[in-house]
């Protein structure tokens, strides 16, 4: 167990190292920190002096070590635009994005598991055919189009839901303000959550259905039938666990994709999260903020993937965790 954990953590650190190198390379090549600091009306000598003082003439390794050291202490530079520590800017935006991801995950898990199971158990029923037909349409509509369509129908035409922003949020702790405490907050988060879930949900329905159908053909399910086990127990105890094992792995990968989709969803709904912020930062060439976003998102990816791997190892008895570390 310990060896497995250690191996995972070492790999995570290695990936973070590569990300930090990329981030550092971006920082060094994107924009001129001097110009942001003092403008262009400074003589060349003074500029050189400032460069020396800021360590911009140091060797690559020295500069990187300084960058990494600062990053480890939570110092990812100061946003040119907000004039605030970049990490703070992101952390303020993070809860909005996380709540959106949470809402979408609820929708995905809540619907994909029952729909996937149903379509696998009754593959020929009319309802299953409708679900499968809709699912292929679903994976063919890009997230941003779903978002636009929903705004057009539910906000512009019917006016049932607000079309942008977070609405009323309630402060919980630190930078964390939640949408889930007020009715207005709920109204605001529903459409973006559905939009974010829209392409992933059919993907998972299809995945769960395919895995479940494969499992239902397996010898051990046939054997369970031959033992006279109740069909519900066969579906939910014998088949479901085996179905969900590969789904967990894919799910881990999809969390990353979901963060990417938040950028699209947040842009359409002007949701004040880090995806929206990132695009603004790109347009303003706010290098520290871009770099900080890269590192934070990389960190989220690495952490979720490591956690998913660990969960998989714990849930799947055939993965011998102790041996996998070796």
């Amino acid at each position: 167990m310990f060896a497995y954990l250690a191996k995972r953590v070492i790999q995570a650190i290695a990936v973070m190292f590569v990300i930090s190198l990329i981030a550092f390379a971006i920082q060094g090549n994107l924009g001129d920190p001097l110009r942001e600091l003092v403008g262009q009306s400074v003589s060349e000598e003074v500029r050189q002096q400032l460069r020396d003082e800021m360590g911009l003439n140091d060797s690559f390794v020295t500069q990187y070590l300084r960058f990494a050291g600062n990053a480890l202490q939570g110092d990812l530079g100061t946003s040119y635009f907000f004039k605030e520590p970049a990490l703070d800017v992101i952390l303020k935006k993070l809860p909005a994005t996380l709540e959106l991801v949470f809402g979408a995950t609820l929708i995905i898990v809540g619907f994909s598991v029952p729909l996937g199971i149903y379509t696998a158990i009754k593959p020929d029923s009319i309802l299953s055919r409708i679900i499968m037909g809709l699912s292929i349409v679903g994976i063919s509509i890009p997230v941003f189009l779903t978002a636009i369509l929903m705004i057009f129908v539910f906000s512009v035409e019917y006016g049932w839901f607000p079309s942008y922003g977070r609405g009323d949020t309630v402060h919980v702790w630190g930078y964390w303000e939640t949408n889930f405490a007020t009715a207005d907050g709920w109204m605001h988060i529903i459409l973006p959550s559905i939009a974010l879930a829209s392409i992933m949900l059919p993907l998972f329905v299809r995945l769960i259905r395919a895995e479940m159908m494969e499992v239902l053909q397996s010898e051990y399910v046939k054997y369970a039938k031959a033992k006279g086990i109740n069909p519900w127990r066969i579906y939910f105890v014998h088949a479901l666990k085996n179905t969900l094992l590969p789904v967990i792995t894919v799910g881990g990968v999809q969390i990353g994709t979901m963060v990417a989709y938040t950028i699209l969803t947040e842009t359409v709904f002007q949701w004040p999260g880090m995806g929206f912020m990132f695009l603004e930062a790109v347009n303003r060439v706010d290098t520290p903020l871009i770099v900080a976003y890269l590192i934070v998102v990389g960190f989220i990816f690495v952490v979720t993937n490591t956690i998913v791997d660990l969960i998989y190892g714990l849930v799947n008895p055939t993965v011998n965790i102790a041996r996998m570390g070796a």
Partner: protein
Amino acid sequence: MSTETLNPKSEPSRWSKIWNSNMGYSFRRNPVAVLSMIVFLLIALASFLAPVIAPYDPYDPAQIDIMNSEYPPAWVSGSLPEFVLGTDDQGRDLWSTILYGTRLSLLIGICAVALQAFLGISIGLIAGYVGGRLDSLLMRLADIQLSFSTLMVAIIFLAVTQAMFGTDTFNKYAVVFLIAVIGVAEWPQYARTVRATVLAEKKKEYVDSARVLGFGPMRIMVRHILPNSLSPIFVISTVQVANAIISEASLSFLGLGMPPSQPSLGSLISSGFDYIFSGSWWITAIPGVVLVVLVLVINLLGDWMRDVLNPKLYKG
């Protein structure tokens, strides 16, 4: 007896061989596949013939008049007869712009997948054939690459590139950047599947005998092993083209892809989005429908192909 009858017609052409094969049979039996194929071919044909079909050239500023902007499609009152699908916010004929835009979307999608396939197949063949450390290193890389979403990598790469080179230079090479980033990011899909086939085929006798006959590894891989991974490659490629088109559209929508002056479907939708509240829904809706139909028929074809070929696809 003339020579014509001696040269028998019973020798089937390659085309009729495909038509009469198992695949051809199931294709004819499946109305959804036939319809999807027809729609796909229509879209592909129309878009590649865009310069011939389109009544206007959306890239030619001389043909664009800003005064013509936001005319609705022909079936809505207030339309102009010369603009069948209406005009966009810059006064371009929407029908022409969509034709050119679809051409760009398809081109980027297909080229990006070709690049993915080339990288993935090469890496997969090498990893599977050489094995050992190189194999585990490459597959580890594939795992890590896969754990980062393509779209995320593409967004960050394009955002940084755009910020670095400035919008003008970026716009000039946007097509190349898009193909490169979508093409590079998805190689593991192919690499894993090809590698799995190589590992399975390597054990078989014919590979040994080819080796004993003194054929080099390149020849064995390309001539003997690769043909056995064709059906999974086909299935993956279809789905990947659909995904690549969606990725391209998403990136362009975010302003990280094709510029408004040379719009793909995604950038067209994006430019229309600003006008959706003022009632000009068609600038977004019509290209949106084209995009969805295009991706949908490709996905339907992919589904059909997976059912017929039923290859063992690598699962994560």
